[in-house]
Every structure is written in structure tokens, then in C-alpha cells.
């Protein structure tokens, strides 16, 4: 190595990875990975999220799993928790929807309304259409 630039490149390249080994106070993306979640396809969702995080080069993100969130019929469920903001719960996820959430919500800060969980007249619904019917 002959230049400072080379040193800086190695530093940048490695920092993002090793920094994850410290306490992170950052955005958390939580995937429900209990039996119900896994059966409904949480695994490809988790992988898609990780791929997208990597592709977009997001560093301040924790991707974690959790147990049963309690709303098994809406699985796979993904929760996005940003520091200082209210938790957003996405339901009936698939790999494509999950990628969109990482792009639009985690990266750009726009909640993807159409995938969020809705509570209408005390009932938890994930689809407006149900109510209209």
C-alpha cells in the first residue's frame, strides 16, 4: 500500500461490517419467524430484506427476527421501527413487497400505506376491500 487513499478505501469497505458489532441505535426491521411466520413464507421475506439492505448499502439497519407476533393469519409480518417514530406493522408480506418496504420506507422514509395493518371498526383488517364488501 503506497497511498492514503488505499488505506481509506480499506477502512470504508470494512467499517460498515465491523461497526455492526457495536450497539446500534438504528432502524430495526423485525420479521416474525415463529412457526406461523415460517409456514407463511417468512424466510424468503427475511432473505429479500437482507439482500435489499445490502444492495442499497444501508448501514444503520438491524434486521432481526422475533417470535409469534400474535396475528398468525396476517403472517408473514414485518415491523419497521425507526428511532423516534411509531412502529409500522406490515402484514401478508412477500419478497417483492418486502423489497419495496426497504426501498421506500427504510431508505426514503415513506411508509408504504397499502401494506400496513389496518384497524377498522375494532377489527384488524389488512385489506380495505373486505370492509367495502
Amino acid at each position, binding site marked *: *500500500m*503506497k*497511498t*492514503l487513499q488505499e*488505506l481509506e478505501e*480499506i*477502512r470504508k*469497505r*470494512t*467499517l*460498515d*461490517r*465491523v*461497526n*455492526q*458489532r*457495536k*450497539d*446500534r441505535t438504528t432502524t*430495526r426491521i423485525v420479521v416474525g*419467524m*415463529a412457526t406461523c411466520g415460517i409456514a407463511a413464507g417468512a424466510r424468503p421475506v*427475511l*432473505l429479500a430484506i*437482507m439482500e435489499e*439492505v*445490502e444492495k442499497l*448499502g*444501508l*448501514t444503520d439497519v*438491524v*434486521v*432481526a*427476527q*422475533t*417470535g409469534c407476533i400474535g396475528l398468525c393469519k396476517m403472517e408473514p409480518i414485518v415491523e419497521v421501527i425507526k428511532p423516534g417514530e411509531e412502529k409500522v406493522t406490515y402484514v401478508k408480506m412477500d419478497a417483492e413487497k418486502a423489497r419495496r418496504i426497504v426501498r421506500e420506507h427504510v431508505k426514503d422514509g415513506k411508509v408504504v400505506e397499502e401494506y400496513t395493518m389496518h384497524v377498522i371498526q375494532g377489527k384488524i383488517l389488512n385489506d380495505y376491500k373486505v370492509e367495502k364488501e
Partner: protein
Amino acid sequence: MAFYRSQVLVCGGTGCTSSDSMKILEKFKEEVKKHNIENEIEIVRTGCFGLCELGPVVIVYPEGAFYSRVKVEDVEEIVAEHLVKGRPVTRLLYTETVEEGRIKSLNETGFYKKQERIALRNCGVIDPENIDEYIAFDGYKALAKVLTTMTPEQVIEEVKKSGLRGRGGGGFPTGLKWELTAKSKADQKYVVCNADEGDPGAFMDRSILEGDPHSVLEAMAIAGYAIGANQGYIYVRAEYPIAVQRLKVAIKQAREYGLLGKNIFGTDFSFDIEIRLGAGAFVCGEETALMNSIEGRRGMPNPKPPFPAQSGLWGKPTLINNVETYANIPPIIVRGGEWFASKGTEKSKGTKVFALGGKITNTGLVEVPMGITLREVIYEIGGGIPNGKKFKAVQTGGPSGGCLTAEHLDTPIEYDTLTALGSMMGSGGMIVMDEDTCMVDVARFYLDFTRDESCGKCTPCRIGTKRMLEILDRIVEGKGTLEDLDKLEELGKQIKAASLCGLGQTAPNPVLSTLKHFRDEYVAHVVDKKCPAGVCQALLQYTIIEEKCKGCGLCARQCPVNAISGQVKSPFKIDQDKCIKCGACIDKCPFKAIVKK
């Protein structure tokens, strides 16, 4: 960048390695593969986390879950539950980190809260065998800064500004040492790292070399630039195989990256480092003896002056610093001497690493700002004395240091306050003793060590320590007299004054300081012929309490010298003349009828 959703950090320090942490690491890799998640989980071997008592230690991020005393059999469950399903295995977590079912950050626990890690900044965080990870946390940035933007004088000025003093025990101002060596004119100079850590119970240098070897290499290169040397030697004990191995790997990687070798960063500065193995003689930690050993001679000290700064290795000006001293240098250069000087106290700047051992709950390695009190270190960080026992004394500075008592608990830890109390900072060993420790026995232990390690070159040390040990042997055998105590004091003072090197000059310290603070215990040994702590075998008597003895005869059958006799179903008796005080009877008695006092 590879994105991992979780990191598993397995401690690869000597403590955890000796309790199978490398097998645990392999098992993690195997299990993760089995579950097909090896691309999501990064498994890293790191240096020492510090909490050696709870080893083998495994930390899982992002949660920061701190698994303690992990066994190979536990790994399967941790992978299946925590890594696959995201459910930490609470049963294996360090209890202090679990609060109402959620995991607390490790930095909030008593052990870590008061610590401030500068020398240990990368230990337990990076993979010591991966130079990229060292670079990620500003590694070699200080060297780059020094070579491209600073003159040697500016470097020395920065180190002087930091107020850093030698961490190996002497406490000599580091910047001044660099300046003196820089001023010596010669065609060749050397930089030496003293990694001959020999105090019983001290292991901070080993942990730094194992957990962050590049920090020492970088600092040595900086020192080389500052004083005008192109060659460095690390003198490390062969008994530290993991440290030696990681140093070798680190030197190789640094050479490959051109961070050691010719024309570093395209400048005309060249610097290389070689390892020299020591055979584990305590005296070789003394700088002149160390240099003799590097040159291939017997490790024996020379009189000073000349100091190494004028005439060291092969008669050339040589800079010798200790491992921990070097580890502080890169952050000082990157963040500035003033930043470092803002920590600690007036005369002792920065932080110091201590190896906590003895009768303490959290045995391990801690780094704290100078000026912290003994009480904070022992009770808040160290978790106090186990088994509800009472604190009696703490030994600092190893065989060269002395004891501090309960009345010194609120003394701030600094070079000068410790010396004033008859102890010393030393390399940072801190051995805690409880009420069951006999201070005479402790002094005897240390003197036995220094007597054994005395190189024999000068008479006061060679013969003086031997005579002192003989007196102590007499005392613990109950054959001492009051005059012996005065003789010990007189001898001790003379050995300190007349010995050639630091070994002899400090060897009497453990005796002198215990005599000062625990004279009554010595008196109990020589006058009452009693050991108040119940340690010295010769002063103990084993007796059978008649009322408790049921006359079963188990003890008599156990006694190897037939010192116990009696009729079955009536109380037995111990013949004190025959008894060898082995304690076999006491362990066997089902009625706790035998006591030693």
C-alpha cells in the same frame, strides 16, 4: 459490503481458549452451516472481552446478548433458538444483562459501566488476525498522519502533551523518553517493545497482543519515525503462544500491505519489526537484561547509566516501551495529546488496564481512568468479594509492589499515591485478598518468587532475598522471634538501596508493606505462635470436639500416619506429635467434629 443480520463474537483470548472457545467457534460455524444461514451470520473470533471469570464468552449482535460460560453442547441450542428463531437463550445469558426479560446493553452492567477503553479499544471487537478490521477502526491512520503531515519533533511534542507515562511499572514520562532517544546521535537506532510480562496475575499485555496486535506494530513504527530508527524488536515470552502467533500473522499482513517495510506510504521512511522470544525469566522484563537477552547473552541487568536512550541494543540508542504504553499511542496521535491528557488526574493521565484477580467476583481485565478509587474498582467493577467474606487487602504491582488495606479503599489510583503508600502501580496486577488470607504467607509467596527469579549478578539481591525468605520460613513454621521482624525490615531496606536493578530494588516491598500494615499478624505468628487467618499449617492444630464425636472411627481409618486413636462409640483423639496436618480427617468427618485452629 457484505451485510450480516447478526454477528457472533467468540472470545479467542487465552482464558477462554483454555476453556475450549475454539471448539465453540468451530461448532458455531458447523451449526450455522447446517441451518443454511452461513451467509447471514458472521462468526468472528476476537480478543479478550475482559470478563474472564465468565468465560468462554460469546456475544451475539445486534442484540448484544452476552452468553457466559458457554459449553460446546450449548451451541446447537443458541443457533437453533437465537440465530434461527430470534429467541435468545436466556438461561445462558450473563444474569446482569437480563432485566425484566429484555437484554440490557453490556455497557450498562457494573463491570463495563465505569470502564473507559483506550488501550483495549479493539479487544473483543475486531478479529485480531484481520488487518482490515484494525484499519476499519482508524488503524494505521495515526502512522499515515505522522508520516505525511508531522515532523518527528511534532510527534514527540504530541506524546509529551498527552502526559502518557510508562505502563510497564516505572511510570517514566513516555514523551521524555522518546525525546532523549531522538536526541542521541548515532548511525543506527532501535525501537523495542517490552512484552516480557512476568508479574504473577498480570495479563494485560498478553491480552493486547492477542486482541489487537496491530496497535503495537503501528505505535512502534510511529516511535521509529519519531526517534529515527528503522528496526524494531518485540521481546515476548515464549509462554504466550497465542500472542506470538497473532503477532506473526500481524507482522506478515502489515508487510504485505506495505505498512511495514521500505518506503511506507511512499515516504522515505522504512521500518521493520522482528520478534524475539524470551524464555520466561522475570528479570528479562528489566530493560538492560532484556536487551542482553536479545543480543543472545544471559538475561542479566547492567548498571545504569548509560541508559538505553544513549547506549542500548548493540551499544546503539534504543527506545524501550511496554506493550500497553504503545497501545495508547495511535489514539493519542489521531485524537491529539490534549484529548488523552483530559482524562485521569494531574500527574497520571489517561487510563490504565488492571488485571483483577484473587478473591474477587469478576476476575478479569478492566481499563479505567486514572484517579478512580480502589473501592470503585473492587466493588463496582469487580463485583466485590465472593462468599460474603470481608475485604482484607489488595496487592498491587505484583512482586515489586505492596499491599493496600481497607483504609486505603478510597485512595485514588495514581502512580504517585500508590508509591507514597509503599505499593506501586507496577504493570497493573491487582490481587484482592479476603479475611482468609494470611499476610505473612502472601509476603512469603512473593519473596519466594523473587528469590527464585533473582539472576544472581549482585549480592544484595542474590543473598539478601534468600536470607529474608529463610526468616519468613521460620516465622510461618512458628520458630520466629520478634527480633526477626526487625531483621526483616533492616535487610529489606538494605536490599532496596544496594541492588543493581529494579528486581532487587523492589523485591522487599511485599514484606515491608505487609510489615507496615499488618504487623500484628506477624506478631501473632512469632509471639502467640498462631496464624489468625488459619493458613500456616505449622501453626494449626487439628482437634476433635468430644461432644460432637460419635466415635465412628472414620477419621482414624483416613489418617495416613495413624495419629488418631480411640474406642468405637466413644470420642477419638488426635496425637499432636504424630499429626502431619494434612486435613484428610476433617474432610471425612460426617459430624463436623474436627476443627483446625
